[in-house]
C-alpha cells in the first residue's frame, strides 16, 4: 500500500498510514484522512519550510533507527513520559502487530512495557479469556478515540520535543566543538610557544654571534688603524717629507751655490784678464810695428832724435823702443790664419776652465725601500696590455662551416640517451634483453624503495613486532568527533 520510499517530510504521515494498515484497516482507512489531513496540514509548514526551520533534521533521528527496521511498519513513538498533554497510560488493545520483531533497544528504553504486551503476559487461562475478550470488545469503540487522541498528543509533542532536542543537541555539539577548539588552541599555543621560543633563541644566538664578530672586527680595525697610523707617519716623515734630509739638501744647495758663484766669478775675472791682456798685447804690437816703421827717428851720436831730447833727464820710452827694434822690410803681410779663434788660443789661461762643483749633492733621502725601476705607468701598461691578436690568430683554423658541423654533432651526441644506433629491422632486436635503468634495477627485480614508498623500513631493527599502542587514553569527548555521522557530512 505504501511502496513509495519515505521522504523525510512525509514520513510522519506515512508512518501513520502504515500504522493503520493492520487490523484497524477499515478504521485505519478512514482514519488516515483526518490525521493524514492533519498530518498533511502539519506537513505543510514543515514541507514548505523544508528542513531549514528544524534543527538537525528529523531524518537523522529517523535514520538512527533505520538499520533495525526500515521496511517494517514502524511503531508509533509511545507517549513520552513527560510533557505530553494527552498522556494516557490506559492500556489498549489491538496492537497492530503481534509477534513483531523486537524494537531496538533504544526504542524500548523510551517507553514502558507495552500495555498489550504486558497484558498478554499477564493473561491467564481460557476462562478468563472470554471475559477478557468481552472486555476488549467493550473497549473497542473508545479505542479509536484513544488512538487518535494519543497520536495527536504525540504529534503535538513531537515538534516541541524535536525542537528542544535539536536545541539541546546543537548546543551540546557547540560546546563540544568549542571545547575541542579550546583544546586545540591550547595545544597549538603550546606548540607555537615552544617553537617560537626555539626560533628566537636560535636567532638570538645568531645575533650574539654576529655582534661578537662585529665587536672583534671593530677591535681589529682599531688596532690596524693604530698600526697604520704609526707606520704612515713614520714612512712619510722618513721617505717623503723628510725634514732633516730637506734641510741638509738646502744647506748643500747653498754650499754648492757658493762654489758655483766663486767659480763663475773666477771665470769672469779670467775672461776679463784675457781681454785686457789681449788689448794690451795688441797695443804693444801696434807700438812695435810703428817703431819698426819709424826706426829712422832713432837718435844718432850726432843728432838727437825727437824722442831723445837733451833737456830730458832720460830718453823717452819710444826712443828705447826704437833702439830695440829692427828696421821693417816691406814683406807680405801674413795671411791671418783661420784658426786664430781656436779654443785654446788664450794667452794666459792654458787649460780649459773645468767645473768641479764639489761633492755631488746628497739625495733628499728619497730612497724608496723597494720599487719598480721602470716608470710605473709603463709597467702597468705592459702588464695589462690588452691582447691584440693578428687576424690570422683571431680567426680560427677551421672554417665556419666545419665549426657549425662539429657543433651540431656535439649537440646530437649530447642529447643521446645511449649510443646504440637504432636499427630498424626487428631481427636485430629479437634477442635483446631489456636493460632496466639504474633507477629500476635491483638485485632481484625492481626496487620498491624510491618508487612505491619512500620510507625505509628495516624490520630487523624493530624491537617488537607490534605497533604502537596508546598508553594514555584519548579524550573521550573528542573520540567521537568526526565519527558520529557518515563521512559525507563531516565538516571538521
Amino acid at each position, binding site marked *: 500500500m505504501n511502496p513509495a520510499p519515505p521522504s523525510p517530510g512525509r514520513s510522519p504521515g506515512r508512518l501513520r498510514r502504515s500504522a493503520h494498515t493492520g487490523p484497524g484497516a477499515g478504521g485505519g482507512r478512514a482514519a488516515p484522512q483526518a490525521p493524514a489531513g492533519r498530518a498533511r496540514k502539519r506537513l505543510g509548514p514543515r514541507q514548505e519550510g523544508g528542513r531549514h526551520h528544524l534543527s538537525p533534521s528529523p531524518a537523522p533521528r529517523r535514520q538512527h533507527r533505520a538499520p533495525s527496521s526500515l521496511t517494517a511498519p514502524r511503531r508509533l513513538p509511545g507517549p513520552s513520559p513527560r510533557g505530553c498533554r494527552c498522556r494516557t497510560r490506559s492500556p489498549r488493545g489491538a496492537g497492530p502487530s503481534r509477534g513483531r520483531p523486537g524494537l531496538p533497544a533504544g526504542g524500548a528504553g523510551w517507553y514502558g512495557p507495552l500495555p498489550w504486551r504486558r497484558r498478554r503476559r499477564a493473561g491467564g487461562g481460557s476462562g478468563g479469556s472470554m471475559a477478557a475478550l468481552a472486555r476488549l470488545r467493550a473497549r473497542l469503540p473508545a479505542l479509536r478515540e484513544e488512538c487518535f487522541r494519543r497520536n495527536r498528543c504525540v504529534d503535538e509533542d513531537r515538534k516541541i520535543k524535536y525542537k528542544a532536542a535539536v536545541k539541546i543537541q546543537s548546543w551540546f555539539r557547540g560546546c563540544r566543538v568549542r571545547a575541542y577548539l579550546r583544546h586545540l588552541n591550547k595545544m597549538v599555543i603550546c606548540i607555537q610557544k615552544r617553537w617560537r621560543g626555539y626560533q628566537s633563541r636560535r636567532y638570538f644566538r645568531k645575533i650574539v654571534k654576529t655582534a661578537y664578530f662585529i665587536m672583534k672586527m671593530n677591535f681589529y680595525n682599531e688596532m690596524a688603524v693604530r698600526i697604520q697610523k704609526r707606520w704612515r707617519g713614520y714612512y712619510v716623515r722618513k721617505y717623503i717629507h723628510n725634514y732633516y734630509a730637506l734641510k741638509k739638501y738646502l744647506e748643500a744647495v747653498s754650499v*754648492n751655490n*757658493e762654489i*758655483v758663484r766663486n767659480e763663475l766669478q773666477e*771665470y769672469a775675472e779670467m775672461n*776679463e784678464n784675457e781681454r785686457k791682456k789681449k788689448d794690451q798685447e795688441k797695443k804693444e804690437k801696434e807700438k812695435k810695428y810703428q817703431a819698426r816703421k819709424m826706426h829712422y827717428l832713432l837718435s844718432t851720436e850726432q843728432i838727437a832724435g825727437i824722442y831723445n831730447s837733451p833737456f830730458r833727464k832720460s830718453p823717452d820710452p819710444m826712443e828705447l823702443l826704437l833702439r830695440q827694434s829692427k828696421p821693417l822690410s816691406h814683406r807680405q803681410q801674413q795671411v791671418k790664419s783661420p784658426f786664430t779663434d781656436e779654443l785654446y788660443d788664450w794667452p794666459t789661461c792654458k787649460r780649459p776652465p773645468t767645473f768641479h762643483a764639489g761633492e755631488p749633492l746628497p739625495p733628499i733621502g728619497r730612497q724608496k725601500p723597494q720599487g719598480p725601476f721602470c716608470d710605473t705607468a709603463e709597467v702597468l701598461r705592459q702588464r695589462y696590455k690588452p691582447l691584440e691578436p693578428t687576424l690570422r690568430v683571431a680567426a680560427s683554423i677551421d672554417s665556419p662551416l666545419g665549426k657549425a658541423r662539429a657543433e651540431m654533432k656535439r649537440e646530437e651526441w649530447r642529447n643521446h640517451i645511449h649510443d646504440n644506433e637504432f636499427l630498424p629491422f626487428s631481427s636485430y632486436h629479437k634477442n635483446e634483453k631489456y636493460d632496466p635503468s639504474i633507477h629500476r634495477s635491483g638485485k632481484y627485480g625492481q626496487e620498491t624503495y624510491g618508487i612505491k614508498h619512500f620510507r625505509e623500513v628495516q624490520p630487523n631493527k624493530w624491537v617488537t613486532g607490534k605497533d604502537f599502542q596508546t598508553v594514555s587514553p584519548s579524550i573521550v569527548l573528542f573520540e567521537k568527533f568526526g565519527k558520529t555521522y557518515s563521512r559525507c557530512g563531516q565538516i571538521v
Partner: protein
Amino acid sequence: MSQRQVLQVFEQYQRARTQFVQAVAELSARPQNAESLRSAGTWGAVGGRGGLWGPGPQFVGNFFTDGNQEAAAPCDHLGLGVAVKNCRFYKKAAAFVLRAVGKHSPQLAQAVVQCGALESLVICLEDFDPGVKEAAAWALGYIARHNSELSQAVVDAGAVPLLVLCIQEPEIALKRIAASTLSDISKHSPELAQTVVDAGAIAHLAQMILNPDAKLKRQVLSALSQIAKHSVDLAELVVEAEIFPVVLTCLKDSDEYVKKNGATLIREIAKHTPELSQFIVNAGGVAAVIDCIGSCRGTVRLPGIMMLGYVAAHSENLSMAVIVSKGIPPLCTCLVEEQEDHIKAAAAWALGQIGRHTPEHARAVAVANVLPTLLSMYMDTHSSEDLQLKTKRALKNILQKCTYLPALEPLLQDAPPNIMKHIVGQFSKVLPHDSKARRLFVTTGGLKKVQEIKAEPGSLLQEYINTINNCFPEEIVR
C-alpha cells in the same frame, strides 16, 4: 795674327761689360739710386740673353736687399745658374740674392722655394768653398725662418745633415751661420727639432758652447734652446749632452745676448718637469741665473726671471731652494727698477710662484717688503692689463699663505675689497691663537683700521671682521 786681333776685340767687349755691370752694382748699393736705375731700364740690360753673370747677381741682390720686392722672376735664372755654373763667386752672389729675396715675407720665400732654388742651395752646401757654404746656409736660414712649411721644405731638400757638417768646419763664420740656420729650422715644431736632433746636431752644438766667440755662442745657445723648448724628451737629450755646468759660464759672459740666450736655454729646460729643474738646481744653475739677473738690465733679464718662476712653480722644495739661493732680492729690485711692464709682470709672476706654497715661503717673500709694491702696481691705472692681472694673482697667492702679520698691516690701508678679503682673512686666522700678535695689532692701530672697513653683512669679509672682533674684549673694539 788676325785671330789675336779678333780675340782682343772680344776681350775688350767682355771687359767693358764687366765694368758696366760692376758700376751699376755699385750704384745700386745705394738705395737712392734704385728708382732712377729702374726707370733707366737697367734690369733688361743686365738681365738680357744668357742670364746674369759675373757681378750681375750682386747687383740684383743689392737691388732686393733694400726692400724692393719686385720681380721674383730672376730667381729662376739664378736657381738654374747656381747649379750649372762652376764659378764660386757666382754661387755666392746667387745665394746672396736668394737670401735677399727670401727674407722679406713668407710669400717671397715661397716663390723662391717654388722655383726650385732649394735643391741648388743644398748642392751649394756641399761645395768646398766655405764662402759658398756660408751664403747657401744663410739663404736657407732666412727661408726657413718664416713658418713651419718652409722649414719642412728646407728639411725635405736634405739640408740638415749638411748643415751639421758645416757646423764642424773650422771657419767661425760658417759655424755661426750653420748654427743660426739650425736654430731657425728647429724653432717651429717638435718634429723639425727631432729631425735636427736625429742628424746629431746636439753633440756638436754642445761642444761649441766653450768657444770664445760671442756671436757663435749666441747662435749655439739659441739653437739649443729652440730644440729644448718643445718637449721633455728633447730637453732631456739636450741635458744629456752635458751642457751643465758649462752653460753657466755663458751666464757670465761679457756679451749681453749670450747671457740672454744662455738664460733662455736654461729656462726652456727648467720649464718641463720638476726633475729637470731639480737637476739644474743641483748643478748650481739657480745661483748663476740669479747673479745674471743682478748684473743685467732690461729685456736681457727676462728669461732669467721666468726661469726662476718656472723652477719655483714646480714644487715647494725647489721654491725653497730658490729662496735659499737668495733669489728674492734680485726679483724685488727687478720689480721696482724696470720700466717695461712685461718684465715687471714676469717678476711679479715669479714672486707669486715662489711665495704660494707654504707660510714659510710666503713669509720669505713678505719679509722682503715686496707686497706693498705689488699692491701699488695692481692699483696703478697706468699698468697694463697683463701686469695688473699678474700682480693680482701673485698677491692673492702669497696672501693666502702669509701669516707674517707685520708685513700684512701696511696693506690694510689702501687695499681694494677683493684683496682686503684675503688680508683680513689671514688676520682672522692668526689672531685668535696668538696673544702677542693681538697686542701688537691693537697698538699699531690695525684694529682701528679693521673697524673702518665697510663690508656687506653676510659676506665673507664681514665674517672675518667678526672673528677678529671676537678676539678682543668689548671695550677695545668700541
